[in-house]
């Protein structure tokens, strides 16, 4: 099978419930390589639950998740090897330096010392953070910490990058820098991105949009498609319509 024909992510008929409360209901979509897909949904839509299932922090018997063609339940190691994640909560060790944090992650992914050094340099330089590699994470501001987390998620050259509301709590320039950088990544390196957010200004015209509300996919397609479906003129109106009608 040629490299590019396998979707970076396939979610098929995925459901999940917390006790009797349905968090996800038969969610299905795919993300192709090089595609930047925005998972748009209000708080409580099920975005974090979906991410927890994709990363196998949770497990569901209903439906399937495949990362680069590997089933996360049956071949979890192969699937997770193709996955880079930036979680909603910051997950860097504040008392360690940038370099120590990144080396820790590299070792978890089995990178040799030489390879880790090389990849760390590449990723940090790409984000203008290499000079700060010896600083403790505690000394960095929120935006820079996020950059380090993105660098970390990319160290093992995954095929799919998941970002769970990575810009929450950041100031406007930091947010813009991260949004621009991730979009650039998609077009330059061919990595697939699934970006969960509830902030409409993080969407680019070329992005694909999945609107998630109350655990179900309300719309899935390019921005013109979504606008057409919702009969709206702007993404904000479409989002409002799609999530209001369904409520």
């Amino acid at each position, binding site marked *: 099978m040629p490299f590019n024909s396998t979707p970076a992510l396939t979610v098929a008929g995925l459901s999940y419930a*917390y006790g009797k409360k349905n968090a996800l209901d038969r969610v299905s979509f795919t993300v192709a390589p090089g595609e930047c897909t925005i998972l748009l949904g209000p708080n409580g839509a099920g*975005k974090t639950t979906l991410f927890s299932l994709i990363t196998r922090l*949770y*497990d569901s*018997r209903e439906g399937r998740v495949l990362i680069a063609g590997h089933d996360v339940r049956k071949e979890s190691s192969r*699937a997770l090897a193709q*996955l880079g994640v930036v979680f909603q909560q*910051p997950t860097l*060790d504040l008392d360690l330096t940038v370099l120590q944090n990144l080396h*820790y992650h590299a070792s978890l992914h089995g990178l040799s010392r030489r390879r880790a050094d090389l990849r760390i340099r590449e990723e940090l330089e790409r984000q203008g953070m290499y000079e700060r590699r010896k600083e403790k994470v505690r000394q960095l501001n929120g935006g820079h910490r996020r950059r380090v987390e993105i660098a970390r998620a990319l160290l093992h050259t995954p095929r799919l990058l998941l970002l769970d509301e990575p810009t929450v709590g950041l100031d406007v320039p930091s947010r813009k820098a991260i949004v621009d950088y991730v979009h650039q990544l998609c077009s330059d390196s061919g990595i697939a991105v699934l970006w969960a957010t509830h902030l409409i200004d993080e969407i680019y015209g070329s992005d694909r949009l999945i609107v998630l509300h109350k655990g179900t996919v309300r719309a899935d397609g390019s921005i013109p498609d979504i606008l057409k479906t919702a009969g709206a003129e702007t993404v904000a109106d479409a989002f409002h319509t799609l999530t209001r009608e369904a409520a």
Partner: protein
Amino acid sequence: MRFMHYLRALRGIMARELLRFVHQRERFVSALVRPLVWLFIFAAGFRSTLGVAIIPPYETYILYEVYITPGLLGMILLFNGMQSSLSMVYDREMGSMKTLLVCPLPRWYLLIDKLLAGVLVAVLQAYTFLLIAWFYDIQAPLEGYLTVLPALILSGLMLGALGLLLSSFIKQLENFAGVMNFVIFPMFFLSTALYPLWKIQESSELLYTLASYNPFSQAVELIRFALYGQFNLYACLYTSAALIVFLIIAIIGYNPSRGMMQRKGGPAA
């Protein structure tokens, strides 16, 4: 290649634990102060009131400080095990546990690595305590300092696995105070760390039974004998069995399809 991946992950997890340990000097100091207070103050105070008869592995009458030294080594391992458990709950609340759990290695292996890393730190503390005790004239035979190492590792693993197990069942950080009250204190006081079994039996048959089944007692006895170059087979088997049981339950607790990660992970978004 796969083997190298396992090895690199183990090295990475251990290095991180050591670095965190180095950065948190106050943790190191407080971990040492606790048993030293017991040794220098409590034991000195009780020296005259608590006479200890000649019991194996000791061949002569001993000072109370000598008797409780293995118990205090056990205390270091116990608190470390619980500290690791606390940091696992903290990591889970703060999210850094997730980065460990989403790496492409089996979860049981990651948990065992985490356990080994915790034991490495605990054993370093135990030897520092032994060094200070040595200057205080509590000296075991020289070879004892070598033979105690496997006993410290096995006991540390067992108590660390208990911590791991607890961490999979503790929902929030605030509940950790309960662990202190319901696990650490009963385990420590209902053991042979501070008084020998026969002394406990003199006071209460029930407490004697509880203390003899307490895995912490067996860990302390394993350490006590090993420190004097002797091997206590029963204590070793008992500690190993407890390690296996605790570890299996902990691994089940962290299994994504059955475990606690799922049950406690309410709908955040």
